[in-house]
């Protein structure tokens, strides 16, 4: 287990370095103004100099993201399951879910502050709302792709709905749900940032906002770089969790 994980982290690191170097070279060569696009070297220096401060904000954003993401997984699996199991849910509730999901949260974010105040709640709520749809759709897809013969076994054995869900449907849908989670986790991160844009004194969204107000592009990009890193780490954690939770799948299939 150790070797592939270490080596894939190294691979990711290597290509990040390549990208940063490329960006540096291109930025220098093209003479693009640093106020538009700063040099990555400057961004890294900035991060190095103030890493404690950035870490604090990154931590806050990560917490918000995780809370919103956790809610979206629970909520998404529940809603997806309800829609998959009940024709009525599918016909009457699901269209509303789809419609509501198409309302850009960015546009209604102020309403959340009005309703929920200026704490972590509105950020978590926005993260949840942005992320949950991916989970719903992939849960639905996963539940619908559980092999019919396996469902037949459960039906003949007359398992209680809850037992069938836990022992048959959910494990069968797990690979799809995991795919949904991979999409959802970065959406939750974006949601947390959107929430912080509207009202916050902490978090990387706040950092970006206030740096934009002072045209501090280096700081904006430092925060963006951290967001990329957080996204990557969260994704990596999900891949790891997926492997741990689906031991029956061949390793090389991941």
């Amino acid at each position, binding site marked *: 287990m150790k070797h592939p994980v270490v080596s894939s982290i190294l691979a990711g690191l290597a290509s990040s370095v390549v990208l940063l170097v490329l960006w540096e070279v291109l930025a220098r060569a093209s003479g693009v103004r640093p106020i538009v696009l700063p040099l990555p070297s400057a961004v890294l220096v900035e991060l190095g100099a103030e890493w404690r401060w950035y870490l604090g904000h990154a931590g806050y954003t990560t917490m918000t993201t995780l809370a919103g993401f956790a809610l979206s997984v629970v909520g998404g699996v529940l809603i997806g399951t309800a829609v998959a199991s009940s024709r009525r849910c599918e016909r009457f509730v699901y269209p509303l879910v789809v419609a509501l999901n198409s309302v850009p949260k960015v546009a209604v974010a102020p309403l959340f502050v009005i309703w929920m105040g200026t704490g972590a709640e509105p950020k978590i709520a926005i993260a949840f709302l942005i992320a949950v749809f991916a989970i719903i759709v992939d849960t639905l897809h996963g539940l619908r792709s559980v092999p019919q013969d396996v469902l037949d*076994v459960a039906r003949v054995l007359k398992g*209680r709905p809850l*037992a069938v869900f836990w022992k048959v449907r959910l494990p*069968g849908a797990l690979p799809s749900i995991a795919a949904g989670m991979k999409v959802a986790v970065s959406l939750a991160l974006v949601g947390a940032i959107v929430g912080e844009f509207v009202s916050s004194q902490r978090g990387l969204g706040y950092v970006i906002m206030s740096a934009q107000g002072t045209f501090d592009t280096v700081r904006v990009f430092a925060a963006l770089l951290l967001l990329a890193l957080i996204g990557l780490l969260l994704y990596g954690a999900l891949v790891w969790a997926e492997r741990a939770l689906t031991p029956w799948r061949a390793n090389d299939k991941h």
Partner: protein
Amino acid sequence: MQPSSVLAKGVRKQYPGPRGVQALQGVDAEIGAGRFVSILGPSGCGKSTLLRCIAGLEDISEGTLTVGGRAVDGPPDGVGIVFQHHALLDWRSIRDNILLPIEFAGKRVADYTAKVEHLLRMTGLQDFADSYPRELSGGMRQRAAICRALVDDPPLLLMDEPFGALDALTRDQMNAELQRIWMETRNTVVFVTHGIAEAVFLGDEVLVFSPRPGRVAHRFVVDLPRPRPLAVRETPQFGQYVGEIRRLFGQMGLLDETGVATA
């Protein structure tokens, strides 16, 4: 629990859709409680369909079908089934697959440890209890599915070619085992097979199906004393049953030496 009888009267089954095949047509069958009934019939004649109807997995299009005296409307209670293809749960070890009926029945898994071990040993899977289905050979998966169907001693046992992927010897063993278990439990068994000898060896009666749309073309009562040793297959009486069925098959006009099907 009492073994369940199965009664079919004029059962017709048409699959839905514009091109929906008519799989069964006027199937009449009376399978008494505690009987072991083998079903033989050409490929595609509707044997699996009938089993699925009895299991409540498919609606019938016409006729009546009762299990334990009650019209089938969704899976009846106390049914164990071996599907034609194993239908094991990929995400469960072989042991946990076998324990599924126990868990679904809400019984204590711990009470069945010994039984599962016995079944695993009987089917030669003792070394694979903790393996996942994908690590097993085709025949091994089928054996695991058999264990799963047997573990909770269902009053009605439906088996769809359970031994199709087994070599002749393992198959013989399984035949002997199944007879032994059945004689202990005396549940009702509906056993679809392609082996004429197997059908006769195991069955109290043998139903032979016509080609699609399937119906019961002939019913043979096998009057051989139990327990039947494997060697019974070398007796003239046994040979007579097999020969008779073989002849019937031939009359259904499927075979000629060039091999081109005429049906």
